[in-house]
């Protein structure tokens, strides 16, 4: 997971996200670019909101989230965050930032690392999605 831990993530600058929530435990976000509506649990919503305003690595998100909800920033939480980032990336809601510092990292290496770690994680998925394709 070292590669994911050190990768900076963000919501793309041109992403249009529309948020709705009528209950603190249930958050909806509509992603205009894909037309998908996502149902997020509070952790996923917190991470996505943070990445909409900041760039952050999994380590930084773990520290941030631990401080917000008052839990220990341990490896278990880090693993959960890393899985969540993979899933948010798979949904097209966030993207990695390739900086000069990470220029040695190729897309293929990143994909391989994600694939090899995905099967070992037991974290629950962050969201359900509705894809508004035409019937």
């Amino acid at each position, binding site marked *: 997971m070292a590669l994911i831990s050190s990768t900076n993530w963000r919501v793309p600058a041109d992403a249009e996200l*529309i948020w709705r929530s*009528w*209950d603190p435990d249930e*958050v909806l976000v*509509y992603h205009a670019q894909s*037309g998908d*509506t996502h149902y997020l649990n509070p952790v996923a919503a917190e991470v996505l909101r943070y990445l909409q305003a900041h760039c952050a690595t999994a380590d930084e998100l773990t520290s941030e989230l631990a401080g917000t909800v008052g839990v220990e920033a341990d490896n278990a939480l880090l693993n959960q965050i890393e899985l969540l980032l993979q899933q948010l990336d798979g949904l097209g809601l966030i993207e990695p930032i390739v900086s000069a510092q990470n220029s040695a990292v190729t897309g293929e290496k990143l994909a391989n690392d994600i694939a090899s770690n995905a099967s070992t994680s037991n974290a629950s998925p962050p969201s359900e999605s*509705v894809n*508004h394709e035409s019937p």
Partner: protein
Amino acid sequence: MKVRDLSLGEFADRLRGDGLLLSMPPFVLHFRSSIETLFEPLHLLYAHYDIEPVGGLIDFDVRIDPKSWWQRKVQNKACFYVDGKHIFESFDADLVLPMAEWLLNWCVFTRPNQYFILHSAVLERHGHAVVLPGPPGAGKSTLCAALSLRGWRLLSDEVAVFRPGSKNVIPVVRPTGLKNESIDVIKQFEPNVIMGPSTPGTRKGTVAHIQPDADSVARGFETVPPRWIISPSYEAGSPVILDPSSRARTLMALAEDGFNFSLLGTTGFKTIADFVGSSDCYRLTYGSLDEAIERINQLGDEPANLNQNEVPKKVASAS
């Protein structure tokens, strides 16, 4: 002038000739057909609808006819023509009535993208709308028919229509379609129900339609603010259970039933979110129409949930 003001013969002559301009708010339908088995049931089902004068705007131009002598006399088949264009495959002319109703529903579902359209039944009582979404077979149309026969104004048995940016529901009053056992259930529920003929042999089994009442048709231009979204589920023998449902979960389910969500994009999402946010959401399980109606009527007697951030309180089930 209404359809009922024409004799059956006059009605048939119009359909065979230049066609009939039918006011079906918010739409105007131009309808033509030479298939004689359509005349009497359509004259019944659309009795209370206004006939528009010639020369006005038309939303749907529909003709149902065989495409050749051979198809008419030998094959007993018919075709759909929409805006002059043959669409879909030919079908068995013995099924022409349910096929005609299906085609008109298809026109409403797929064409008017100036509206946001959800697959739901909608009725009104005391100035508030109840929206009944649900998959086929859930008991939505049967419950809709029963409510309309017990004092609820019918807005639609198939679609909840919204103008983008407004959460008021727009009526699209049409004959309520029933299938199989539901036909006899409603006839027993209300022996005086005015229903067209039953047509067996469709893909969904036997189909029949209820004539919408004169008041619902006459008030077809009156939009209604939403108050309740109730997802029904019929279970034989079940007591009535009305459970609160989260608005977020309800929106996700409705989004899957949106006919043109992908076309309207951000506007569609905001429209459905405003509509859901203004409504109390429930799941209804029922085994008796009378009990289900009594429970839904009780909702109308309760004060509105003005705090849109609260999940509505659980309603005690009847015992």
